[in-house]
């Protein structure tokens, strides 16, 4: 019979199998790289109102404790954004020096007009894990650094971690990796350079080891669905 198909088509099954194999690997790799929060969320750095809030200056150079502004972080699931009055505690008009006035003018105006500054939220969780309990984590000894990165070095805050569920579970399954002594939770520079920079076995703070910190928890980190999705 006549040839219905040209001879080169005999190579198609082999080529097709090869293309399918490498195509599959390509799809898996592309999904892993581009379609995960480590790519889509990390580095999110929205422009804040006014001149923004310089964490590097306030928390880093001036050494203001995180809890001075985020007052409820030890008591409430929500680590609150400070209200304008908190800013005005330092930046009240009589205390402002002349060169500062254009930087904090928007705070002063908001205070005068009795309205809030609309800071833009950076760390967003889906609504089905909305009540992330900051209090439980801070009290258990998870440093701010583990989730938010080195805030004390950020002139403009950005998202440092993916905040995806596998990332949560990684710590819940191996809590000793991120547990710090309770009085060092907000000491981000110490946490980064003195604690997390060392291997787990080498971490020791006045005789306290990561394993002791884990053992001291009243309840081991939950891994059930209902712990977060309730």
């Amino acid at each position, binding site marked *: *019979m*006549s040839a*219905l*198909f040209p001879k080169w088509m*005999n190579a198609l*099954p082999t080529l097709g199998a090869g293309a399918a194999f490498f195509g599959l690997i390509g799809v898996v790799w592309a999904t892993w790289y581009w379609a995960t929060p480590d790519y889509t969320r990390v580095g999110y750095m929205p422009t804040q109102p006014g001149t923004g809030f310089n964490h590097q200056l306030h928390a880093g150079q001036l050494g203001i404790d995180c809890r001075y502004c985020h007052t409820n972080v030890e008591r409430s699931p929500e680590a609150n954004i400070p209200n304008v009055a908190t800013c005005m505690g330092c930046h009240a008009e009589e205390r402002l020096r002349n060169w500062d006035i254009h930087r904090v003018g928007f705070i002063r105006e908001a205070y005068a007009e009795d309205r809030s500054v609309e800071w833009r939220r950076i760390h967003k969780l889906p609504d089905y894990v909305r009540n992330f309990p900051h209090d439980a984590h801070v009290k258990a000894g998870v440093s701010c650094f583990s989730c938010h990165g080195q805030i004390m070095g950020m002139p403009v805050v950005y998202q440092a971690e993916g905040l*995806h*569920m*596998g990332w949560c*579970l990684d710590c819940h399954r191996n809590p000793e990796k991120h547990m710090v002594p309770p009085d060092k939770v907000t000491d981000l520079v110490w946490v980064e350079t003195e604690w997390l920079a060392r291997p787990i076995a080498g971490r020791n703070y006045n005789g306290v080891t990561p394993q002791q910190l884990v053992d001291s928890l009243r309840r081991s980190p939950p891994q059930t669905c209902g712990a977060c999705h309730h």
Partner: protein
Amino acid sequence: MSAMHPDRITAERLAGLAPGVAAIQDAPTGDGTLVEDPAVRAPLVLNNRSIHDVTEIVCGYCEKPPPGKWWLPAFCVASTFAAVGMLMILYLIITGIGTWGLNNQVGWAWDITNFVFWIGIGHAGTLISAILCLFKQKWRTAVNRSAEAMTIFAVMCAGIFPAIHVGRIWFIWMVFPIPNYNWIWPNFRSPLLWDVFAVSTYFTVSLLFWYMGMIPDFATLRDRADRRLRRGQSARVRLQAPGPVKFSVELPIVADRIRALVYGLLAVGWRFSSRHWHRYENAYLILAGISTPLVLSVHSIVSFDFATSILPGWHTTIFPPYFVAGAIFGGFAMVLLLLIPARELYPNFKDLLTLRHLENMAKILLVTGMMVGFAYAMEFFIAWYGANEYELYAFINRASGPYWWAYWTMITCNVVSPQLFWSRAMRTNPVVIWIVALLVTIGMWFERFVIIVTSLHRAFLPGEWHMFFPTWVDILIFTGSLGIFVSMFMLFMRFLPQFPMAEVKAVMPQADPHGHNAHHNGGGH
């Protein structure tokens, strides 16, 4: 005589048409296949067809539209139902599961009923193609191709329902154990996950079986189209206006060219060499071996969806064999439901699918119908014998509670109606068989409805008691799945080989001219 095809000469000689040779077929009853003498093999192909005739008949179904103007209107009706069903699925996905009649107590209703119904339908195809193949039941050759096609389409319809019942269909990938950024796996201890593996394995193996069986037939269709092309016998496609309008237009398309390409691609280079046949036979046997446990495992695992729960009415050890028997029962009913009209509508179909075939399948309906009847009785017996008041209540509530009509529809259709087939006259009457098959199909749908809804609607506390009422979305999605099934089966009947030509030819007398048939008739060696 020299101009005659050698097959025809053999056929005529064996049929007694050639001088000096006795006919091999004595036809005491009916269409000649219903011989009762156990020493005489019933012929599986009638009217002394030659091997070439079989090719002409089977290829003719793919190459020409069926006689009469029923195909296109019927297809339009079926595909309209399918389209409406798909629109309803879209509506369901956009709006949510609340468009179904589900409530707090009855969380599974028509969705899972339809899933189990369709999965069960498929079992006849697997049984015919795998188990009957291993047992060398030659009569399977007339029904296996269409039963396998039916299996594929039924499993496709079945797959729709668990997928849409999850509500957020974009998360359906989570049923597969795919490494993911949530670092979680499906629950490997859940039968719902086993179901995913069972059904996807079943679909893959059935599809391979069906497709591989068609490869030689595709090659025949390819060669016929190619030969017509080379002889200049191919015409262009002409579109005729419907009804009384006198208008037609010739398209610049030659159907045979498309056939040669499409069937040629599907035939993947099959050249009828004996090496091809040798590998084909081996592969067929291996697939039959793989499929055989699937006949039993798939519906067993579907039954685990219910049996591993602790709900009275579901928590029953009899479920796996009971479900398998029910699946084969419902599957054969669907085969008969489809093929009996096809016998009437397609020319020469009755030569290949004889009354003997229908009778065999009617006997299977009778046997499996009594198996499910036994299971229904056993459920009640164990509910009483087990002395668990909740279990007993669940079953008494089935038969006499608010869904009594569904229960007794099931009993009437599944247990009572097949009893007609004790009568030989009934099981050789295609109209009776078709009506019983229809009743059984209805009854098997109600069986799943009864198992699911009557068990769920009254749980342990009266405060949890709710009735289930379907909404129009429930109904239209179900009729949509029927439409999808019928549309696909009609496309299969129109464009794919409905019979495995090589296998049908192998059970014809010409394939065995010196076999015992000739000997029995005194033809001599």
